[in-house]
């Protein structure tokens, strides 16, 4: 898959994943990797950027094994942003789908 397309949709997937429950970095990377094949390293900068833009809150939580994990919690602004992004994506993909179908018809 084209890297630019991946980048655009990666943000949406990350936001939707964390909407259900708070997740820690590695967990999030694993679940996103299941949806699209993405370089694992690139998700952390994205999380950092979204945190800096106040879409995420972070907190540390002890785990049964290993060091404490940093959890990402989607804020209210984050949720609003996710909704908007989803709406945009749906409209966008609908348009693209429509266009492709028209192209196929000839």
């Amino acid at each position, binding site marked *: 898959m084209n890297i630019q397309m991946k980048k655009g949709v990666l943000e949406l997937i990350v936001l939707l994943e964390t909407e259900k429950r708070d997740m820690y*970095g590695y967990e999030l990377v694993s679940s996103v990797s299941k949806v699209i094949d993405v*370089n*694992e*390293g*690139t998700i952390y*900068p994205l999380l*950092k*950027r979204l945190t800096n833009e106040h879409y995420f809150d972070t907190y540390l939580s002890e785990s049964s094994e290993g060091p404490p*994990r*940093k959890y990402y919690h989607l804020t209210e602004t984050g949720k609003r942003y996710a909704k908007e992004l989803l709406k945009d994506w749906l409209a966008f993909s609908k348009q693209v789908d429509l266009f492709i179908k028209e192209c196929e018809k000839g």
Partner: protein
Amino acid sequence: MKKDAFIAKLREGLRMIREEEREDVIAEYVTHIDLKMAEGKSEEEAIADFGDLDALIDEILDAYKIDVKQAKKESKEQRFNEELNRFFDECKQFIMRFTSLDIDNVVRLVFEFFIVLLIIWLLKIPVELIASLGDSLLSDILNFSSTGDLLGSLWYGLVNAFYVVAALLAIVHIMRSRLLYYRAHEGSESVIDDVKDVFHFERSKPSRSEEVDKREFAHPYSDAPYPKKASTIVAILVKLLLFIVALPFFFALIALCFTSGVLMFMAMEGVILPGIWLLVIGGIVMCAAVIGALMHVVKGV
């Protein structure tokens, strides 16, 4: 790549980010690698999954809204400046290791070194005169024979060798006492005083009150802790040199005295030559003055 190397490179790549933020990002990667390894992957595999490290660094910087190209350029310039500063610092330390002086004093020392060289070069003029005079005299007296030439060359060589040895000793002595001055602020303040000291010119004799001052402030010059051997040898050599310089004037004086005797005899005979009289008297006065001055210096040594 091992984890430590990866972290070190990441830290280096992200150095323009605030330390707190940078360590935060790095901690995430460390946790990621640890968890990957807990799943059974090797350290190398876990890190290989991140792909190209430079691309990853660019991505992280991009997340901080840092213009990667601009930042790299700036950091390059910054690094160049740092290197330059480090180079200068090292030069400074290199010099200081030898002299324990700061850079200003080193510059002054070098400048003074050139002054000393200039003074010593000027002293070459009388030495050269004596050397060539002796050379031609010996050659002439011995009628241009080979022994005369040989003796002349020997004389020339000896005088020049004497000059070189004296000059070297003088330079060593002066620079040593300058160094001492800059290091411990001991010794005389000006390089000229040191030059004078080498030649043991009498430094203006202190009056009684000045002597009292000297005692009070315990001028450290007289009991400076370096050996005086070199300066004694130089003093003797200089004495000799000055004496040799005075010699022709002395003979000239004798000759002029004879001339005045002859002139007196001629005057009695009735031949009066006022011009020659003036010349002879002027010559006598000049020679006496030069000999007096030279002997004063020799005595002062």
